[in-house]
């Protein structure tokens, strides 16, 4: 070969190697694009939401004035229940800020305290007549605007008109902070209360319970049915058109958009069968239909993994096919089936679109007590809060997302543990 063509080949080779390197780099880059997005997603949610785990409380010296409460001699149970506890808080605020005199200013002043604060005053008094006339120092729930100011979510440099919190409020808040009369505490309200129109009184407990009931219904229905279907298809089904039809259907249902299941639920369960709207029962039914393909597919894989020698040994000992499967194959396949079921449940827990169709978006302020009570679920609660403009709801939405992700991580970790602990390689 001449020197000239050698150098040509070498130059070409260098270009080919460069191309090789570039290609490899693009591959690595796209893996890292995925990683980077994951990191951005999690940081953005955690940085937006971690403040929601704390809530501001205001210290007030509340005098249990019977006149303000409207309680006279021998108050009855309902007198106590409907007494004017709000009045006590207002009086305490006026006392704390004696310089506030005009009506409109007073009205602004009352906004510092949450409208839910009266319940803690009521609880502190606890229908106890002897406390009337005494003064107690109470920590009551602050309004979400005050909370946002203290957490630095409100930009003080903005002109007053563009700000949610007025200058006057800032003055009062600063004076409270100076005297140590506000305090941030762990936000128990968030974990014990249900949905509310006021951010500081809103919590995820109702949604968690709704999710729990919905998932229980889903689990109770989808696990036995899914396992039964998988056993039939894997162990008994003859090769015929009916079996083919079933398989095609299962594969298709696994890819049908979830919202279509919601339409089915609306048309069949609500309008045709007349089941109650917004109930975990119906939500569970819809999610069952949705997760069944996942469970069937993974259960079949688990059954397939059990070696035929087990079946042959059992059949050789005189067991019937049914006994072989239920006594020997199924127990061995169970860990794999459970893993698949948990993953299916995790999917169901994160699902919201079909539940919107069956009315689980209703504003539910009460914690559901059973599977026929109106309820909402965690993802739908997130969807609802995401629409609300208050800064307090933005952080609570992110915090609710963190709660949801924590449940999902726990479920998946449990599935991984099950697989690692019980899976047998043959």
């Amino acid at each position, binding site marked *: 070969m001449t020197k000239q063509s050698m150098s040509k080949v070498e130059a070409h080779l260098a270009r080919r190697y460069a*191309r090789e390197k570039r290609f490899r780099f693009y591959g690595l880059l796209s893996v890292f694009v995925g990683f980077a997005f994951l990191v951005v*997603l999690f940081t953005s949610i955690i940085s937006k939401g971690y403040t929601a785990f704390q809530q501001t409380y205001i210290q007030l010296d509340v005098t249990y004035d019977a006149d303000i409460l409207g309680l006279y001699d021998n108050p009855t149970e309902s007198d106590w229940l409907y007494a004017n506890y709000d009045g006590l808080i207002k009086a305490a605020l006026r006392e704390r800020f004696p310089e506030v005199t005009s009506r409109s200013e007073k009205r602004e002043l009352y906004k510092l305290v949450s409208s839910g604060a009266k319940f803690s005053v009521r609880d502190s008094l606890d229908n106890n007549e002897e406390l009337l006339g005494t003064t107690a120092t109470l920590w009551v729930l602050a309004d979400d605007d005050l909370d946002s100011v203290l957490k630095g979510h409100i930009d003080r440099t903005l002109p007053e008109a563009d700000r949610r919190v007025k200058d006057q409020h800032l003055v009062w808040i600063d004076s409270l902070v100076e005297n140590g009369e506000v305090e941030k505490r762990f936000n128990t309200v968030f974990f014990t209360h249900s949905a509310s129109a006021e951010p500081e009184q809103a919590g995820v407990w109702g949604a968690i319970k709704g999710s729990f009931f919905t998932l229980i219904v889903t689990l109770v229905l989808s696990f036995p049915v899914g396992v039964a279907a998988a056993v039939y298809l894997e162990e*008994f089904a003859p090769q015929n058109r009916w079996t083919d039809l079933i398989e095609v259907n*299962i594969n298709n249902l696994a890819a049908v*958009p979830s919202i279509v299941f919601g*339409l089915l639920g609306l048309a069949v369960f609500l309008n045709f069968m007349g089941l109650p709207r917004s109930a975990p029962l119906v939500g569970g039914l819809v999610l069952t239909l949705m997760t069944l393909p996942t469970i069937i597919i993974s259960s079949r894989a688990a059954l397939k993994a059990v070696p035929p020698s087990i079946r042959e040994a059992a059949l050789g000992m005189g067991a019937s096919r049914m006994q072989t499967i239920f006594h020997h194959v199924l127990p061995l396949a169970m860990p794999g089936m459970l893993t698949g079921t948990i993953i299916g449940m995790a999917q169901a827990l994160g699902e919201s679109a079909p539940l*919107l169709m069956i009315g689980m978006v209703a504003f539910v302020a009460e914690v559901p007590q059973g599977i026929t009570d109106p309820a909402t679920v965690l993802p739908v609660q997130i969807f609802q809060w995401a629409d609300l403009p208050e800064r307090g709801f933005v952080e609570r939405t992110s915090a609710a997302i963190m709660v949801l992700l924590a449940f999902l991580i726990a479920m998946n970790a449990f599935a991984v543990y099950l697989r690692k602990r019980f899976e047998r390689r043959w």
Partner: protein
Amino acid sequence: MQASTLFVTIVILSVFGYYFGYKRAHDVAKPVGGVKSLHSLPSYYGSWTALWCAIPALLVLAVWTMFQGAIIDGLLMQNLPAEFAHMGADERSMVVNNVKTLAEGGMVISPSEGVKAAAEDYKRYSSISALAMAALALSAGLAFLAVAWRRIRPELRARNRVEKIILFLLVSCASLAILTTVGIVFSVLFESVQFFNRVSIFEFMFGTHWSPQIAIRADQVGASGAFGAVPLFVGTMLISVIALLVAVPTGLMSAIYLSEYADKRFRSMAKPTLEILAGVPTVVYGFFAALTVGPFLRDMGVVFGLDVSAQSALAAGLVMGVMIIPFVSSLSDDVISAVPQSLRDGSYGLGATRSETIKQVVLPAALPGIVGGVLLAASRAIGETMIVVMAAGLTARLTANPLEDVTTVTAQIVTLLVGDQEFDSPKTLAAFALGLMLFVTTLILNVVALRVVRKYREQYD
């Protein structure tokens, strides 16, 4: 008696059935030489009796609960007091609703005497129905239990019979998949046909103006051009295309890197990490797209002097694309790993570099599988709901500009069906027509994709 208590009672009854059957098997075996002269184990005789008790009783329970609502409503409608006789069907059903609320202890604003009387009727019907259901279910259970119990003999093939019943149960569980599909088809088709009776199908498929809100006013007819779904189809396509433009190159390239280049340790760490993206609930992506990506893109637009809507198609598409990256990558990973090593070795033997082998041998061999995967990803993108509901707009705009806000089929279904609704308005029915379109489109995509993937797999087996 409530359905749930009745259910528990039936279960308890069948447990007793098991015990009686088991006992009886022992008893009938005693004179002829003990348990070993029975055809099956005693527990099978017990199970057989229990099943014969439970199945008829549960059937009665299921059928009764399914139809009692409709029958009671019918009775109530017929026996409504004379003051409601002149009303139309709609008003009468309103009255019936009031009656029910009153009967269940709810609040009804100033109920008339007739409504109160009807509420009493309703209470009576309900209690009669519940009582009759309990009586019928329990007596059916008991009767069949007794018959089964009497028929127990040593030569009864109890095991075979029990196994037959179990097999039947297994078949019915498996057939539920077919029932679900049939249910979906019928529920969307039935409502869609009603919709197309009011709005012509051509108007819906080819009309370019979508504003269903107008059509609920009484003085307007549904077919006034408000139900042209073309802007929705275009919006769906636009967002899906953006999503696929993000997901397909990234997913494919990461699958190639992970299966061809990465060492075992990196692979075992990277794969599950990418899978997390698929496990994050869509509502979280929606929140992220609406509150972080959307405003970010708008600010970027300001920097570059572009007018970007806060709810741009781009934001929804980008985030949706990221969501389906693991979907594309795991499907392509499967098909790339399925390409036989001999093909690669042949290519290396001819002096090709790795990337040349991948581009010229592996990818062409894996192409049908990758195409199938992309089709499945497209069907995912089209059916995705929460991201578009939260991050894309609601304005039906006929545009191909990704910086403007568009709306999609799924987003419109949600807006039309969430909240209070009367069931017969074209507005609600339109959602089902959209659902039908969605179902048919994704069904075609899925069937084609599954066929392509399956056909390809057979090639190298």
